[in-house]
């Protein structure tokens, strides 16, 4: 029960059996909506970067190093419009602040309790994306703790490969994909992730999702990109505080 929030097992006795090939399973689980979604999203990004006059290598560099569509779009947008490096840094940092709570809560479910060097942990977390985090938090309960690292590496490496492939395709031939197809495709990824997190096991997390959606949408027209941070801090706190009152039978603290 100690790790109930990470490995959503109701009883320790229900620990999942070992997978024959955890890395392969991670690859397979990714070669589904996650890889397709990120590939299509990155086709859109590659086409946008090409429009902004970026060569293919820096475009692939942005996907690899910034690794998160919101920050990537902000970078290209500000660079293309001649904004300052400070403005660029602030915009990307703002778009990626979510990585902080995601790393704090996701790292142990990636390592499965294994002790790793700081360098390895940094490297692992540099590959973290919303899709990886959501997968590890909500979907990876069939992976035993000892195999989670290999499972995650299979998943994350596949996701980055799909993203780089999509970026390159978009940059080289973005215009051959009809706009309607891109529009629907880009709708798919956020919808997929919203459905996944709506199925969170803990009421505190589910309520945080609901509050986060409401606050994020209400404040976006006023606060712009800061709304995500307000949604996180306010929505998360409301979810955290209200869950024990609304669903006392599930409260653990």
């Amino acid at each position, binding site marked *: 029960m100690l790790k109930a929030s990470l490995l959503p097992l109701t009883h320790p006795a229900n620990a999942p059996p070992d997978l024959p090939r955890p890395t392969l399973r991670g690859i397979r689980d990714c070669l589904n909506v996650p890889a397709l979604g990120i590939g299509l999203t990155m086709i859109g990004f590659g086409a946008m970067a090409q429009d902004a006059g970026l060569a293919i290598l820096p475009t692939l560099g942005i996907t690899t190093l910034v690794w998160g569509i919101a*920050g990537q779009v902000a970078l290209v947008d500000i660079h293309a419009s001649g904004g300052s490096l400070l403005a660029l840094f602030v915009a990307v940092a703002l778009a990626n602040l979510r990585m902080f*709570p995601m790393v704090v809560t996701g790292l142990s479910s990636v390592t499965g309790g294994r002790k790793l060097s700081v360098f390895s942990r*940094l490297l692992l*977390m540099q590959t973290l994306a919303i899709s990886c985090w959501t997968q590890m938090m909500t979907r990876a309960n069939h992976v035993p703790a000892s195999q989670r690292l290999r499972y995650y590496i299979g998943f994350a490496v596949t996701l980055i490969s799909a993203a780089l492939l999509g970026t390159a395709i978009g940059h080289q031939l973005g215009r051959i994909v009809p706009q309607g197809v891109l529009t629907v495709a880009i709708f798919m990824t956020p919808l997929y992730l919203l459905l996944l997190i709506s199925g969170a096991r803990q009421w505190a997390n589910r309520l945080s999702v609901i509050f986060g*959606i409401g606050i994020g949408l209400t404040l976006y027209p006023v606060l712009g990109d800061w709304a995500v941070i307000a949604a996180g801090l306010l929505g998360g706190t409301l*979810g955290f505080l209200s869950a024990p009152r609304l669903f006392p039978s599930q409260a653990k603290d």
Partner: protein
Amino acid sequence: MGDSAIWIAVLVGGFGTFMWRALGVAVETRVQEDSPLFNWIGCVAYAMVAGLMARVLLMPGGDLSFQPFVWRALAFLIALAIWYRYGKSVPIGLIAGVISYAIILQIKAL
């Protein structure tokens, strides 16, 4: 637009995401798993991801116009209802949402 200018921008942007991840790695070892603080940070992560994804889904590219928002929200609500009805199956909900959205786009284009 010089070649070095874009690479400097890439590195500055890369640092803008790396610093949060590094900070997360540094803090993670100091926060006890399943403590109230840990659970609160988890709630903040869920709410942040939800807020961002809802914005990207319903106001893509910062589009604030009202009617497209309502149509996208309708497709989202259909997806959510069908997801819930069919045992919270993500593939079924996803397909329902994407098909609804494609149909809505078709009707709007007519």
